[in-house]
């Protein structure tokens, strides 16, 4: 009897604890949507600046994601197959941008690619300004979100048994061709999920972007700008639209996770 009572108390504690955490997570979102959701959606039609910021956010996040997919997938493959010398160090380096505060990331980018830096000066020579430009936004998004893609892509590739590639090699494929013809399709859903996570993270970035490129404004910077300039009520519709748009990648991710991994050998 005592055992059953203790079990019931533990179960109650788990349920109550979960409810507290879920409330803490959901309450601010619900409050935001209730206060600004309808107004934000209505404002989408009339507010050109908001529409422009959303379009800029989507474009720059998509570009940052495409660049990362192109450059990060081979890197993820090397890390997954443990074929990169110093792979552990590279892995740690990749995690670093995730751990430093994003305004600090912005400052680091400013130092590396600002007009006063050699790299920034060289890029300016070829007409590619980083600070105060769309390029700066893409760079900031890439810096903070690319590690998420590489990490998730590495896991997706590692889940594909290496012996698929071994078989493809004995059938005449080079390592790159085997990775393209076999590993890429088998890890495809995982790679797509990784890209969606990166895109969503890039869309929500504020700290690094605001230091590198205040104007043109992405949606997160616009909501901050309105909050500091015009107050909470003016910022709420923009913020609510950002929350509503965040549902899209969330749904994509849920649908991707619901499907079985191709790379696991069937029984």
């Amino acid at each position, binding site marked *: 009897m005592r055992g059953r009572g203790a079990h019931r108390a533990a179960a109650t504690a788990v349920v109550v604890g979960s409810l507290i955490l879920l409330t803490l997570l959901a309450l601010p979102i619900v409050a935001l949507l209730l206060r600004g959701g309808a107004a934000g959606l209505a404002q989408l039609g009339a507010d050109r600046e908001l529409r422009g910021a959303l379009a800029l956010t989507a474009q720059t996040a998509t570009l940052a994601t495409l660049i990362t997919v192109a450059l990060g997938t081979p890197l993820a493959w090397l890390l997954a197959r443990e074929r990169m010398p110093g792979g552990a160090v590279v892995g740690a380096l990749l995690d670093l941008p995730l751990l430093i505060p994003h305004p600090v990331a912005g400052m680091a980018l400013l130092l590396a690619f600002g007009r006063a830096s050699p790299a920034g000066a060289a890029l300016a020579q070829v007409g590619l300004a980083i600070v105060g430009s769309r390029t700066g936004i893409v760079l900031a998004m890439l810096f903070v979100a690319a590690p998420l893609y590489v990490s998730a892509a590495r896991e997706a590739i590692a889940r594909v048994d290496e012996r698929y590639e071994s*078989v493809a090699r004995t059938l005449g494929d080079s390592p790159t061709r085997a990775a393209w013809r076999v590993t890429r399709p088998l890890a495809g859903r995982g790679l797509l999920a990784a890209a969606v996570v990166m895109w969503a993270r890039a869309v929500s970035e504020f700290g690094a972007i605001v230091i590198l490129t205040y104007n043109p404004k992405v949606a997160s910077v616009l909501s901050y700008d309105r909050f500091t300039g015009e107050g909470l009520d003016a910022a709420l519709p923009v913020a609510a639209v950002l929350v509503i748009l965040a549902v899209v990648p969330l749904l994509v991710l849920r649908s991707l996770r619901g499907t079985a991994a191709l790379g696991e050998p069937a029984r």
Partner: protein
Amino acid sequence: MIEVASLAAHAGAFRLHDVSFTLPRGAWGIVLGSAGAGKTTLLETIAGVRRAAAGRVSLRGADVTHVAPEARGVGIVYQQAFLFPHLSVERNVRYGAADPAHALDIARRLGAGHLLARGVRDLSGGERQMVALARALAPRPDILLLDEPFAAVDPRGRTRLRRELRALQRELSLTVLHVTHDFGEAGTLGDLAILLDGGRLVQAAAPAALFHRPASAAAAEFLGAENVYAGTATPLEPGSDDEAGTMLFRAGSLALVGLGESAAVSHAVIRGEDVTLARERRGLSSARNVLDGVVVEVVTHGALARVTLDVGEVPLVATVTAGSVSELGLLPGSRAVATIKATAVHLC
């Protein structure tokens, strides 16, 4: 031809050490060994998908140790088949083939013709292996590496697949290296048997020699020898040419005349099927070992029976037919006489 010389390879923490053997062109080599012996690592190193840490791999007389797998002309089939799940059976079979018609012909020969339009996810274990074999043979390799390819196949399918593969091997002059746990396969298919243990080569010999002349007691036990005794041996009638290699082996009260090749003999090995049983001693016999014993246990497996005798406080197992057991009236407690030729007592 596959020639492996002092080959070493790493697979995680596992190490394959100093493996050497030669498998002639068109021969069928069998790789035996317990789990973790290094069988798959050996195959993968020969295929080139695993790098050799030391030593040399030669195929068709050419050193390919540093040649990429796609340039080695070797097909590999794993136990799990590893069919590409995003491709149909037909596209799997044609994956590496320069001649699609030949690929499909091979698939039909192996009995996979009716599967070509299907996806690979709903294939049975036997069907998957048929497709994997066809896929490996489609690019016309002359060397085929098989990693327990029949393990997931039902007995009927296994016999048919083995027969077809054997016919294809002869027709195409394939050199095959085949990992298996099935000693029957080793006996029926193999020209050379390679026994690995703990990443090292224990013995490479013709299957009959491996089974009847194992290099060590551990090898004998792994290969299913029923009687392995630890003891000492002395040359019998030293100096006599007639008795060259013949030794008297003693293990406690047991004394056996057997054949050994080394002065450092420490074990005697007798396979159960080399022991003949009778109810009483008969007249003169050429057999050098005649042992009186008492039946301790009789275990019947289908047509065969495993009879354990107590011969001087030492157990001796004989494998005889169930019919013989019944005819001789061998029951626990009954007396029996075991006869073993000296040539069947392997000293190692």
